[in-house]
């Protein structure tokens, strides 16, 4: 391949980028520079070719996110690629399509995860994807008129759709197929095991699942648009609390804070970073406790001892978070450049409380191991069921405990360090069983690691000199990042890789705000895990994915 033939190499190009340009030589139309990664602009009919080369020859095996947006003169789909081995090695592929006929080739044959991401892009922005296996709306109802994130969308136009035109999800029960060997069952939207309003269109052959198709969107609020209507400085931060609302608020806030701080070039003081790290890990413990509790609920079937014990221990973390932030659920504690206030006074009392919690945690976990992981019936139910092989998990962009339960050693806290994580001593738990049991084990071991992190943070905070307790950087009253600056940043949320893409347009509000929800990608793996298994195993697999519909639907 000839090197850089038709391309104007920009001076600051790194060597890796040159190699990529060589690899994609004949496909690149133009280059762009996103703040997080080099971006290559390609033609809409070469998407599969480009992504295929990047995946197979350059090792970009993780399609983290597909962002779609509309400009006055064109539509754009951006494929944010990463490597599972090194998430800091990123590349973006930008696919512009003209505004009259926005058709672009689908990336689904290369990355399975593109299936849902492109459906969302079609649903909200209006880009159509050629060669997509199932291009339907995903978040909004079938009868919705228009694409709400498009520029010409009329917000005030009522969605007047008569009842008879609404697709009734319960009507089509496939009863007419009289000779059919299978049975169609709607599991949800209201069902004890769907963890919120999730609708699983399930086809059964006796007790076995032939096919399951998650139907999402019942909790869709278009959080992205809400964020686009808020100013960077203060108005966006409350929203992340409402994505993954299972007490993982601080982790979500960090996703926005990281993207916006890098976009506006804000340096967070070290002291604030330690507080953030401690708070985030407390959130992780609270979130994982609920995950373990509800997973046990799905397996055991009643409000059993484990669920109540897990809630009891989660409550302790929750109380500490309440002391720290003043809130129990919607914390709104982070600010761009730091946190809103210092640790509560008297500090000794607070440290004592955190220490007691962390010290008691190993005993509590031992109790869980006695009750859950060493229970033979639970092992019968979870070992070897809901299997998600490593390659499949990667193909679907699974992250977090789901990926780590499938043997993928991928944790952004370590691999793409932020906050204070790289200064602390902790490990990333990985299990290679690929089954429900592994995912459970990963979560329980992660709680231990989080406790380690919290302990070290408390030590650091306790010895911090009083006159250096700087909780916020100097941030301008109004932030106006430069026009056409684009950034995509991710953090390790409770469920996995939680990312935020922001495009600035020189105003105080983002022109495009896109959320990468780990649950959205993780939920997509459900059919892979449960097709051919029994109903109870599908329920267990769903529980082990630990989805939060607020984050799936946003």
């Amino acid at each position: 391949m000839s090197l850089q033939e038709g391309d104007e190499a920009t001076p600051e190009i790194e060597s890796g980028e040159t190699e990529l340009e060589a690899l994609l030589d004949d496909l690149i139309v133009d280059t762009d520079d996103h703040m997080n990664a080099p971006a290559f602009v390609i033609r809409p009919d070469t998407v599969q070719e480009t992504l295929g080369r990047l995946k197979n020859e350059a090792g970009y095996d993780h399609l983290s996110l597909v962002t779609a947006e509309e400009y006055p003169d064109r539509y754009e789909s951006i494929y944010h690629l990463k490597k599972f081995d090194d998430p800091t090695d990123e590349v973006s592929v930008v696919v512009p399509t003209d505004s009259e006929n926005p058709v672009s080739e689908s990336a689904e044959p290369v990355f399975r995860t593109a299936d849902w991401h492109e459906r969302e892009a079609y649903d909200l922005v209006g880009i159509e994807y050629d060669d997509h296996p199932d291009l339907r709306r995903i978040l909004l109802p079938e009868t919705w008129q228009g694409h709400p994130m498009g520029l010409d969308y009329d917000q005030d136009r009522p969605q007047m759709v008569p009842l008879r035109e609404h697709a009734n999800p319960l009507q089509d029960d496939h009863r007419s197929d009289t000779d059919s060997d299978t049975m169609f069952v709607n599991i949800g939207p209201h069902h004890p095991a769907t963890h919120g309003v999730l609708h699983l269109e399930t086809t059964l052959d006796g007790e076995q699942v032939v096919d399951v198709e998650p139907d999402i969107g019942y909790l869709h609020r278009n959080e992205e648009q809400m964020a686009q209507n808020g100013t960077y400085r203060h108005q966006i931060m409350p929203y992340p609390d409402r994505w993954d609302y299972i007490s993982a608020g601080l982790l979500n806030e960090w996703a926005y804070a990281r993207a916006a701080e890098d976009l506006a070039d804000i340096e967070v003081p070290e002291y604030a970073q330690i507080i953030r790290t401690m708070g985030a890990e407390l959130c992780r413990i609270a979130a994982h406790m609920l995950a373990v509790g509800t997973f046990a609920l799905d397996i055991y079937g009643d409000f059993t001892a484990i669920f109540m014990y897990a809630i009891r221990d989660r409550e302790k973390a929750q109380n500490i978070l309440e002391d720290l932030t003043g809130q129990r659920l919607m914390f709104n504690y982070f600010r761009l450049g730091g946190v809103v206030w210092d640790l509560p006074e008297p500090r000794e009392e607070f440290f004592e409380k955190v220490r007691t919690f962390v010290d008691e945690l190993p005993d509590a976990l031992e109790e869980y191991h006695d009750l859950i992981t060493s229970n033979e019936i639970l092992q019968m139910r979870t070992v070897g069921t809901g299997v998600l092989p490593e390659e499949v998990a990667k193909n679907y962009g699974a992250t977090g405990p789901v990926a780590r339960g499938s043997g993928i050693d991928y944790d952004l806290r370590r691999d793409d360090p932020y906050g204070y994580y790289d200064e602390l001593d902790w490990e990333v738990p990985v299990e290679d069983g690929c089954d429900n049991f592994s995912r459970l084990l990963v979560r329980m071991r992660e709680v231990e690691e989080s406790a380690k992190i919290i302990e070290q943070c408390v030590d650091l905070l306790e010895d911090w000199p009083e006159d250096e307790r700087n909780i916020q950087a100097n941030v301008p009253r109004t932030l106006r990042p430069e026009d056409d600056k684009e950034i995509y940043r991710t953090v390790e949320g409770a469920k996995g890789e939680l990312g935020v893409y922001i495009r600035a347009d020189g105003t105080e509000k983002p022109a495009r705000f896109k959320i990468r929800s780990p649950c959205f990608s993780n939920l997509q793996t459900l059919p892979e895990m449960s097709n051919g298994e029994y109903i109870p195993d599908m329920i267990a697999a769903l529980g082990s994915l630990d989805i939060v519909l607020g984050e799936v639907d946003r």
Partner: protein
Amino acid sequence: MILQTETPLPDVFANLLGLGGFGAVGEFVAALIAAFIVGNVMLAMTGVAGPWAKRKITAKFTDRIAANRIGPAGLGTIPADALRLLSKELIVPEGADRPAWDVAPLIVAGSAMLGFAVIPMGSGIQLADPEVGLAYVFAVASIASLGMVMAGYASNNKYSMLGALRAVAQNLAYEIPLVVTGISVVLFTGSLRMSEIVAAQQETLISVGGLAIPSWFAIVNPFAFVLFLAANVAEVGRNPFDIPEAPTEIVAGFQTEYSSVYFVLLYLGEFLHIFLGGAITAVLFLGGAAGPGPESIGFLWFVVKIWAFFLLTQWLRSAAPRLRIDQLIEVGWKGMLELSFLNLVLTALIVGVVV
């Protein structure tokens, strides 16, 4: 020591009320009165168990408080709950198979009530004591499966249907080990008559320091006892075998579509079945109504024993995960069945060689 009176309860009433002279009519009235009393005692116990004891026990296991608002220790919640359940709207699903749908709850609750007819409850309380008592009690108890299938099939709901199919599969898998293990007791007693089974357990097995240990079959053959308990828990459909209901999987199984009074009947039926399971266990393995103290308080011991079984089911409910239906059937057919026959052979050997 003979705990059982020779006269069943109806005859006692007949004598008391002087109904003996009225022939068949008198017998019928006496039997009706006796059955009314026994039935109401059992229903009253389920009434305590369902809305109150179940909550309180589970709460203790899971670090909670549970019902404590009305009356002492929340006991007032029983009438309040009864009123609430009875005053709810009865929702009949579209396309329900009407007579079957209405009859099913009656069958589930009724089959358990019928079982109590032959149980010797101590203090002279036993409605009837036929020669085939044990066979009868197993037979009527398993009629409940029919009720579950009717409920599931008639509800016109897929979850109900799945629950009904599961109920059948489960009961087939567990009925046989249950009965075969029960037969091993009959080998000892040589009789299916309930009173004789109880009487056979009253002899002293060994005396340890003046403390007479009775020859309860649970002590004579603990293996059979454990086997029977496990099969019994499956038979009454409690955790870890609550597969026909499996709330997280198939909503509520065969009873998904039931509300109001019909739901109460199914709910009562389930508790009655737990108590009947406890009663059968007590009669077969725990010496019936035997216990320290005078013979006249035998009924109290009997109640203690069946509540102990109830406590066990609630303990399992709080601590044991649910099996998958295929695993349960595997355990039933491949494990329990073999073990129960092994137990039968062993018992036969012991009876043949030792006794």
